């Protein structure tokens, strides 16, 4: 795995989860798995974060909260859905208050299966998410919409700094 050049900060939110995946996310920050080696910090402020790690399914009440946290994050941003409840609703899909996985509310960039997802799987998933993040940053620097898929640049490209060597390093990680 290549060590990323820009350290991504994460924000973690528990939406309708049983707390199993949340404690595995916190376990990633503790000495045994220690993602702080890669520069990852768990911040509490969405405006400082690059990666939105979310666990648990979406129910009627936290739909608005999840949307609000997602909107507050600055571009480029990546959403990582941890655990099968976040991927697809899991065992709660037939419940009356549960709408389904996170992709019913916000676009998800990486799915991490598992019940509860192991810290090794979470690290792998975050690394895959960082690859997507690098792709989005590249698109932003060319002046394209980071969430879109079109290739053509608009007429007046924003003056982009030539900082794209990190993109190759992160593509190796996948």
């Amino acid at each position: 795995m290549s060590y990323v050049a820009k350290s991504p900060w994460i924000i973690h939110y528990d939406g309708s989860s049983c707390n199993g995946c949340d404690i595995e996310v916190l376990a990633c920050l503790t000495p045994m798995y220690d993602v702080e080696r890669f520069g990852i910090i768990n911040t509490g402020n969405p405006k400082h974060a690059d990666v939105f790690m979310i666990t648990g399914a979406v129910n009627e009440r936290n739909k608005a909260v999840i949307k609000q946290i997602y909107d507050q994050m600055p571009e480029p941003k990546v959403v990582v859905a941890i655990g099968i409840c976040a991927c697809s609703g899991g065992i709660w899909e037939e419940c009356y208050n549960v709408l389904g996985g996170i992709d019913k509310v916000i676009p998800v960039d990486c799915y991490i299966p598992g019940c509860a997802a192991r810290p090794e799987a979470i690290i792998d998933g975050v690394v895959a998410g960082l690859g997507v993040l690098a792709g989005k940053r590249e698109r932003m620097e060319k002046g394209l919409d980071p969430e879109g898929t079109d290739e053509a640049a608009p007429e007046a490209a924003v003056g982009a700094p030539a900082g794209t060597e990190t993109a190759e390093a992160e593509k190796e990680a996948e």
Partner: protein
Amino acid sequence: MSVFKIGKVVMGSLFKKPATLMYPVVPREWQERTRGHIDINEPDCILCGMCMRKCPTNAITVDRDAHTWVIQRMKCIQCGCCTDNCPKKCLTMAQTYTAPSVTKVIDTFEIPQKEKAAGGGAADGKLQNNQDECIYCGICAKNCPQEAIEVNRDEKSWKLDEDKCVKCGLCTEKCPKKCLEIK
């Protein structure tokens, strides 16, 4: 008044081996019982659909006509219900987890068609009832997941709908007189 009591632990961690597992660089060694993902041994599967019925999240789909066994990896809770209930024991719990990905992973397995040989193996035999021993208790009918057996105690009749029978073997297990056989 004690100050900096954690000093002893801090000094210890300066000199002891670090506790970090260095995960992506050093691969992880799994324990024997770790529950990672479900594996299927395709030649043994008889497409009975017991795993589909027992799965708490409905992650498994068995299609008898298309001969496929499909599992949605993003819904499997690794509980092991399917492995415990499979009559042919073709499902096992493997130790590695399903890798995270950008799309929702759905794995499809093709189950090979069994050859119809004369006097063939258990998978393609017919369910037969030894009517001399049968006491018409109806336990086989109650337990049949496909409701393929019809038992009438008064008329002493035992009827099987062969199209519905998936030869899962539950009736042979539950029969108190052991008069049912698949051969």
